[in-house]
Each structure stands twice: as C-alpha cells, then as structure tokens.
C-alpha cells in the first residue's frame, strides 16, 4: 500500500479537541497556571469524606470520589492577549456540558464569551474533582464550585487592578473582560492584568463574592451557541474514533459471543493472508464478575480498519461458550414472571398491606415487562492507546476518565500517574461509555505491538453483542381500592437482574440506587404499601442506560395508576393528582429510600407539590381534555428522578391497521433552575425520542446465550419519520433558590407510560409489554 498521491495534512498527535492549548505560548500561560506551579496555594480539594471516614455521610458532590474542586488555578487561565481558557472536566456526550460548565465560570468571571475558549481536561480527579459524567450530575454538582472558580479569578483580577492603580479594591469592578475604577473610569483589560493577577493570592472560599442571579449575563439565558457546534457541522470535531497518530495500527476484536465464554482454539492463518493484516493477537479474558475488563478474544491488527475487519472474518475460532450458553430471553421472561408471583424480600412497608387489601372494595393487578436495551451510541466504542517505555497515553470517548486511567494502569501493571487519558468528544454516551473495557483493549494491544499506537474500533455488531445491557424486568403490581376506586393498598414487586452483578457475580437483588429509581421512592398518598424485591440472576453484563431502573419502574407505576383510573372511571390526570396527594415535602427516609440519588434528604426531599406542578403544567399546555378524532388519544405520566420532576403528555394516533404515530408530546420539567435553558429543552426533546424508541421498537433478546440483534435493521431505534412533529418543552421557572436537579436522564422515564396511556385512551388496548412493535396490529 502506498501513500495517496496528494497527502492530506497529518493530524497525528492531535491529543483531543483541545489542540490550541498545545500551541499556546507558554509564557502567556503563567497566570493561573495550575496546581503544579503553585502547589501549596491550591485551595483545598473537596473530598473530606475520604479523609474523615467517621464523619456523617456526605451528599452531592461531597459524596463522589474525589469530590469537587473550585480552584481557579486548575480551571482558568488568561493569556496576555486576553484570551480566557476554561477547562471543562466533564465529558461532552451531547448534553452540552462543554458549553454549560465554562459558561458558569465565564459568567462569574465577567468574561466576554467571544474571548473564551474551552479545553478538555485529561482524567485527573485530584486536580479537577470528580469526572464521572453520569447520573445527571454535572451541573447540579458543579454549579456552585464553578461559580466560585470564576468569582475567585475575578477577585484576583480586581485585586491586581487595584494594586496597579493604588486604590482600595472595593473601588474597582470587573465588567465584561476588563476592570474599571468607578471613580475615575480607568480601565484595564483582562489580558493586561493577567500577569499581575497571577501574583495575587487565591481568595479564601468564604470571602468570594458571588453574583446575584439577577446579575447573570449568560447563566439562564440560553443565548450562547454550542462551543463545538461549528466544528461538528464542518467535520472537524474530534471523537474517540477519529484519533490518528503516526504509525498507528487499526484493530478489531473477535469477542466470545456468549458472556462468560472464551476461546477454545483458533487459527489465524487465513486472517494473516488478508491484505493489510499485520498480526493476530490474543486478548486474555477475565473470570466473572465482568467489571470493566475486556471480554477477551482474538484481535486482528491491520493497516486500516477495513483490513482488520476482513481479517477478523477470516479467523477460525472455536468458542467455549461457558455457563451462560443457555440464556434465552423467552425462557427468562417466564422465569422472572414466576418469581414475580411469589413474595420476595420486603424493601419498604407502610401501614398494613394485607389488612388494606383485605378491606378493599376491589383488587386489581397487572404485570409489566421491559426487555434488555442497548445504548447503541452512534459512535460505537473506539479508543486509541500508545504504550511507550512503561507509560501509556490513551485517546478515548469515555464518561469516566479517571476510572479509565486507574483501570488501564491496573491492567498494564503501571502506576496511574503513568497513564494519561485524553478525553475526546463522545458520539453519544448514555452510560455505555462509563465502561472502559474498549480502552483497556487498545492499551493491551499497543503493548503487544511493542508500543505502536493501536486504535480499536467496535463495529455496530460488536456494540450490540457486547454491550453492558439495560436490565430486563418484570414489574408486578397489585392494588386494593375503595368504593370510589381510590387505592388504599399498593404492592410493587420488582424483579430484575442488578447492575451490582457486574461487580459481584453473586448479587441477585436490586441495590439501593436501583430501588431508589422509582420503585421505593414513590410518594403516593396511599396508606398501606409494600415494596418487594425478589431475586434475579444476571446472565450477561448489566449496566446503566440513560435513566436506568427508572425506565421499567416508571413504565409500570405510571401505567398501573392509569389502569386504576380507568377502573374507577376517572380522568387519568385528575386521578394521578389524587394519588400523588396534596403538596407536601416527603423525606426519602420515610419511603425507605436510603439513596436519594446521592443527595441530602433535607436539601432534596421529594416535593409532591413540584410533582403536581409538572403534571398540571404538562396537562394544561397539552390541552388536556380537548376532543380528538377517533383513533387519537392523550396519555399522561409523571416521574421524579435525578431529583428532577418531569411529566409528559403524549398525543397518539392509531389507524385502522394498528399503525401508531405520535404527532405531539408536551413535556413539563422542574429542575430547580436552568443554566442553559436551550440545552434543557434539547435534553427533553432527545429524551422524548429515546423514550419513544424504547417504547415502540427497542429490544435486545438472547438465544443460546447470544444476542439476536446484529445491527440497526434488527435493533431498531427511532428515525425521523417516527419522531413527533412537535415536542413542546415547558420549563417550570426557577430562580436558583432551589437546589438544582439533573437534566440528562429524567426526561426519559415518563415517555413510555405516557404513550401507552394515550394508546389506551385512543383504542382501549392496554400495553404491558415493551416494545409495542406490532401489538396494535389488527
């Protein structure tokens, strides 16, 4: 293979989308240069929980590994030309964090956004605080620290100007990228102050003056364009799959088709005959639990991706399928149903459920099924690694750069300090890219190739076959209702393999964080409640998928409430409000929820007033109660997750042939306040489409231990024609007086039940098994 006639300029060694930092004049970066130069002056890192284990539990960012950092020296630098560089330490996967997080800093810094550039942090939580970009946590955990960062840097600029002008610091004010002396109108630009400000002490956290929300110039406005928008539409944006290094080789891996299987024997001779194939390399698998370790298998390394793929096809591998060879989704559904019909471990009990049922005028029960799902990020997992002289650099689309760093180091047997994780843009994450198995593959292969850089690319088939799947669940519900149809007793038995099984092979019960996703922490005004969690065994890798256990729980609970409403002959929305009950603050502890999304139960009680608020808003905006032609219906569902309240009203149309369309969805969201309202809307729009996809189409099934879906023809996701013509997002106004809630995930859970409730309104048919697919077909 020879080089093309006309050589394209090499992008070799481009570390990530933060290229400009590399070429910045180092002398211009001395101001606020970073912790290494100023060691002792660094503000305390916010992870007291690790230091004082005997202290009371820590919540929010305090409770996360490596907590938070609000040190301007870590996050902000200013060049003498006035360019402000802000580090984004969270991974960008479409939620807009590379715009939102720096926007917070820039606002408090009084920086002119046009002169701000954003660089991406490497994996380094000691320096930046927690970087696990999941759990809808970035803004809610880093809003305050990032504000303090910007405000502290602003304070240092003001102090530098005051010193230069020999005036008291309270006579100067930072405003739009310059400091002004109020009395004389003297001005100094941030660039001219940069060096002097570097000599100013970082102000003590308690002394930093934050803006009032009325003074915000960017926060809450939603007027800034995406930092990466132009690069994205011109093909310049750098994703994990886009890394190119000099001398780089390309790998694909044949992995055991059944989880827990391994290579019995293989012959790579034919693969090596494929033009462009360089080598065939074993990757050692690992015994259960899977954790984030590579699955093992046989890698084919080539001079381009296509050659490696062709080589893989030519491999002759005999697999030992191992203990999960009989995993079969049809049989497993029956197993889960059997389990759901028997009592299980009681995880919450209010009042006396049996007595309540005994006294009930009528008893109803229903069972709901949600299958495995795959994230199917449009960018499949892909990573590049280079292991040279005992040090490893990786370029990868990861949600967990520090975790990746630690696990690469562990696998290679080197200290984490010798691993650098460059975080690229993520072409979708949804939880899949929290798991760095694919990065470890690249590291292992680069080492095997004597340090040559190796990029591992997963094909779509790899991605669907070897996902960390959303769990599969049967949710069994029973209710006893009084003469008016109002529930007086409520049983929810949730049966699903737990994510914990990915870390502890013996785990068979849902963890507190799974129960706390809408099965246990349901704040209904029902006196007698029993929540049970029988055992379920995992036969594949179970992982978190955008909004996680909230999906099956909300589908079941919100469908069942609608079923009770129908049985009572009541309006669904009015009945839902009655079940929620009056506005009140419910302590998660009284719901036996010890998790509360990791947040303080005092700071984040379950507020039924806010839940009612989104129900009422969504209903009003959707024109609830309006008359619709035959075959059309409205359905509503509300769900509290990631400490945010969301309600959705779906309008559906079902034609004579049972063809479903969803012309319009109204979504009301109360997340306390919005840093970037346009991205909150975008997340709700996207969550709606993903919710439609899992409601109508999405299913991963297993037969003989193998995933049956290979690509998008079999694992269908929503396409343009299946998306609503209108998704209307209604944000409950917030003034930042309430603590912030999550945004990335909570839009998903109410969508499926809202659709199914609308289908019931339109047709009288109740959907209890997802996906809907052809269940409506005549």
């Amino acid at each position, binding site marked *: 293979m020879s080089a093309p006639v006309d050589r394209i300029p090499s992008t070799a060694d481009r570390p990530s989308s933060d290229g400009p930092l590399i070429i910045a004049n180092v002398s211009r970066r001395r101001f606020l240069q970073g912790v290494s130069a100023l060691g002792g002056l660094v503000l305390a890192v916010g992870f007291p929980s690790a230091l004082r284990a005997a202290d009371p539990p820590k919540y929010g960012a305090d409770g996360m590994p490596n907590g938070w950092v609000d040190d301007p020296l870590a996050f902000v630098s200013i060049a003498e030309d006035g360019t402000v560089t802000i580090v984004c330490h969270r991974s960008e*996967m479409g939620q807009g964090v590379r715009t939102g997080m720096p926007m917070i800093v820039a606002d408090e810094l009084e920086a002119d956004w046009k002169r701000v550039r954003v660089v991406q942090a490497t994996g380094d939580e000691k320096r930046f605080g927690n970087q696990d970009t999941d759990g809808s946590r970035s803004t809610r955990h880093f809003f305050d620290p990032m504000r303090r960062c910007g405000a502290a840097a602003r304070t240092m600029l003001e102090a530098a100007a005051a010193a230069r002008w020999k005036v008291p610091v309270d006579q100067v004010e930072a405003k739009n990228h310059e400091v002004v002396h109020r009395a004389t109108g003297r001005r100094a630009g941030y660039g001219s102050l940069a060096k002097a400000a570097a000599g100013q002490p970082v102000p003590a956290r308690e002394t930093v003056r934050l803006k009032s929300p009325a003074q915000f110039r960017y926060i809450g406005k939603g007027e800034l364009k995406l930092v990466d928008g132009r690069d994205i*539409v011109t093909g310049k944006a750098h994703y994990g799959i*886009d890394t190119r290094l000099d001398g780089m080789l*390309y790998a694909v891996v044949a992995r055991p088709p059944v989880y827990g299987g391994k290579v019995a024997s293989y012959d790579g001779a034919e693969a090596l005959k494929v033009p462009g194939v360089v080598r065939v390399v074993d990757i050692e698998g690992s015994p259960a639990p899977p954790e984030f370790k590579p699955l093992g298998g046989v890698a084919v390394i080539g001079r381009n991706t296509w050659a490696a793929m062709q080589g893989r096809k030519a491999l002759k591998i005999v697999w030992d399928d191992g203990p999960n060879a009989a995993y079969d989704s049809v049989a497993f559904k029956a197993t889960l149903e059997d389990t759901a019909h028997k009592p299980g471990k009681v995880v919450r009990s209010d009042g006396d459920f049996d007595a309540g049922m005994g006294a009930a005028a009528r008893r109803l029960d229903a069972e709901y099924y949600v299958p495995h799902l795959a994230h*199917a990020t449009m960018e499949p997992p892909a990573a590049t690694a280079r292991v040279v002289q005992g040090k490893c650099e990786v370029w990868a689309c990861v949600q967990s750069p520090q975790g990746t760093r630690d696990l690469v180091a562990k696998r290679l047997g080197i200290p984490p300090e010798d691993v650098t994780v460059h975080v690229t843009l993520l072409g979708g994450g949804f939880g899949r890219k929290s798991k760095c198995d694919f990065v470890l593959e690249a590291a292992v292969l680069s080492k095997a190739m004597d340090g040559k850089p190796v990029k591992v690319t997963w*094909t779509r088939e790899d991605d669907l076959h070897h996902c960390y799947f959303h769990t599969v669940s049967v949710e069994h519900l029973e209710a006893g209702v009084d003469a008016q149809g109002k529930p007086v007793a409520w049983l929810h038995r949730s049966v699903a393999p737990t994510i914990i099984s990915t870390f502890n092979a013996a785990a068979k019960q849902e963890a507190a964080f799974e129960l706390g996703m809408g099965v246990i922490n349901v704040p209904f005004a029902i006196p007698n409640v029993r929540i049970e969690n029988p055992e379920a065994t995992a036969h594949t890798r179970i992982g978190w998928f955008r909004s996680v256990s909230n999906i099956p729980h909300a589908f079941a609970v919100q469908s069942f409430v609608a079923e009770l409403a129908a049985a009572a002959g009541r309006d669904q929305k009015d009945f839902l409000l009655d079940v929620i009950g009056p506005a009140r603050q419910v302590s998660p502890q009284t719901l036996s929820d010890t998790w509360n999304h990791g947040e303080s139960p005092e700071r984040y009680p379950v507020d039924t007033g806010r839940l009612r608020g989104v129900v009422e808003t969504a209903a009003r905006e959707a024109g609830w109660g309006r008359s619709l032609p035959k075959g059309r219906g409205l359905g509503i569902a509300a769900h509290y997750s990631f400490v945010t309240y969301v309600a959705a009203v779906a309008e559906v149309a079902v034609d004579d042939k049972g063809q479903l369309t969803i012309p319009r969805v109204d979504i009301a969201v109360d997340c306390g306040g919005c840093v970037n309202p346009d991205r909150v809307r*975008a997340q709700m*729009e996207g969550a709606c489409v993903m919710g439609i996809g899992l409601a109508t189409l999405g299913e991963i099934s297993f037969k003989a231990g193998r995933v049956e879906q290979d690509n998008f023809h079999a694992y269908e*996701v929503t396409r343009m024609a299946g998306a609503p013509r209108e998704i209307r997002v209604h944000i409950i106004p917030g003034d930042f007086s309430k603590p912030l809630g999550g945004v990335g995930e909570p839009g998903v859970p109410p969508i499926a039940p809202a659709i199914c409730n609308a289908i019931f309104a339109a047709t009288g048919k109740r959907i209890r098994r997802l996906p809907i697919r052809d269940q409506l077909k005549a």
Partner: protein
Amino acid sequence: MTPVTINGRRYNVDLPEDTPLLWTLRDHLGLTGTKFGCGMALCGACTVHVDGQPVRSCSTPISAVANKKITTIEAVGNDKVGKAVQSAWVDMGVPQCGYCQAGQVMSATALLRRTPKPTDAEIDEAMSGNICRCGTYVRIRAAIQRAARQGATS
C-alpha cells in the same frame, strides 16, 4: 490504483478495490469528518455526495467511485446550499453529541438541492435513513426549513 476526486483534489488510491469509500476517506486520506455508524447503509452517518447524490460511503467500494467527484462534510460548506444548512444547524442548536450530524448535513443538503422547498413529509422521507440516537429530529426538520427559507431569500 483507483483515481478519485475528493473535495476537488485528485487522488490515486492504492487499496484493494473492495475497500469501502468510508475507510478510504477516514483511514487512508485522514478525512475523519465522515463517520462510521453501522457498516450496512442503515444509519446514514457515513453519507457523502458522489457526483452530487447522497451515498452511504460505508457500503460503497472505491471501485464504484473511480473517476467520480466526491464531496465530504469537510467541503460541503463550499457550496451555497451546504453552507446554508451548516449555518441553520448552528443557529438552531441542532447537534447534541454531533456524531451523526455530518451525515445529516450531507443528506439535508442533497435534499434541498433537489427539493428547495420540502414539506415535512418530504423531509421525513429524505432523512429517515439518517439515525440520530440523541433524538434531534425535531430540530433537524426546523433547521432544514430554515435553510430552505434562507436559500429562497439569498
């Protein structure tokens, strides 16, 4: 050697003839703006223009594009319609993760070239080969309509 013209430059590509255009662009020529999503022409992430027509490059061997003119996302903005689409995408805040958007922009540009004033149904028809897992479809529709309006006034 397969002679191809990509974004106005001529190349002689020395790769096996069955090598897909996608991997020729990405791995051989370093044009990584065109994305891999499925390898089976199911998702549209790899869409390029071949003699002005939208084509899934993942399923197009280079032998099939010999002596043809290929335009990728890196150069589609040189064209008035492509530029209007890119601007509409930025102005409307269409992208979330952005990975599929190169393919979306290529498909939308091809649509507007042949149908300058598409209806929503025509947009759905033309764009349903392009998957967006982030679910930006409502904004894509709006951005196409916006680009169509701008095309009319420019």
